């Protein structure tokens, strides 16, 4: 997948949230600027939201990483 414009290799079947954790990329920030990341890992807490293929506020933990997928972090 492509994260913030950089092509990266991730393990098969891994979620976007897990891939970002492995890459040490912060998915998003609170309005105060505080770093946020996956808490529940099962689609409830909404703390791992990233932009996936142009769609903002997708929950990274609920989407599997795919070849060619474009992910952007820190977009709200």
């Amino acid at each position: 997948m492509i994260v913030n414009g950089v092509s990266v290799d991730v393990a098969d079947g891994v979620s976007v949230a897990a891939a970002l954790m492995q890459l040490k990329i912060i998915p998003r920030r609170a309005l105060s600027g505080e770093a946020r990341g996956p808490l529940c890992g099962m689609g409830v807490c909404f703390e791992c939201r990233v932009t996936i293929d142009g769609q903002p506020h997708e929950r990274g933990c609920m989407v599997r990483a795919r070849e060619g997928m474009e992910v952007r972090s820190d977009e709200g």
Partner: protein
Amino acid sequence: MKANTADVIVVGAGIVGAACARAFLREGLSVTIVERDLVGGGATAAGMGHVVVMDDSEAQFALTKRSRDLWDSLVPELPPEIEFERRGTLWVAADGEELEAVSGKKAHYEARGVRAELLDELSLRTAEPSLRPGMAGGFLVPDDSVIYAPCAAAWLSRGANIVRGTVEQIEDGALRLRNGERLEAGVVICATGAWAVDLFPALPVKPRKGHLAITERYPGAVRHQLIELGYLKSAHSAGTESVAFNVQPRATGQLLIGSSRQFGVEDGAVEEHMIRRMLDRAVEYLPSLAGMKVLRLWTGFRAATPDHLPIVSLCPGMRRTYLATGHEGLGITTSLGTAEILVESVMGRAGVLTKQNYAAERFVECRV
């Protein structure tokens, strides 16, 4: 000072009550606010927080304009959590007929000291590129603004003694709480919005339910507070329910989406058919909304009067108890003008606004 008395007791800590508290505190008087729930928690929290000049009538124009000026004078003092932003109101004309209908508005506003601009199709596209192509134009009031009203109510009420309680009865200069306690004051102000009729059943104030939705954060998606020019038709419709396109960008990047109006519904539950109509209407004007995520839906009750003006005056037949209700969808704006009218009435001063326009006696049912 005894605990059960004050110079001024305000019933209701919504934006109107909070504004009154501030105005009387600045006169050097002691103020107690009686609130049954949270400061700024009723219609104040349910609304959009739009500070807007409206031209439904001369009296409405004068009150909204004066109130907007008063908000502007507070800007240097407002703390960041009030999220004041001068977004401007962009009234959108969907077709040539709507645009034609507002062609005279610019002169009307400017003659009364409010900057305004008529936009043709092209300048509307430039001003607000997210609107559906093909809109005929718009009417821009650039100095209107947006605030976060619950925090504004908390800020305005600083310095007042806040008492938690439900008022069961208001008399002339006194009131009784549900727990039996009696409070007395030189001046009592009833600022309980749509619930004023519980205390004064003769008031021609009716609850008018509204729905709102808020999205996730989409910074930059919308620049102005956007309202369809058909809004006034919705606001004035005699029918029991109507919707109008009304979208506001928040400082957080979120979008507030409204609006709906319903008479005769007392249940505050979110109604799916109203949400559907309201969101469909919004997407007609702003197609990009269809791809956005709504985070939360809620409702609130405006205090509507038959002539769309608030009731701000002595309670008929009394000498120390005042009414401050009936602000319908404009309470955030007109709270400050309301407080000014009441302070001037109590202190016996002339003011900018013509007090009789907002007096309860204009309604037959209020005369004693």
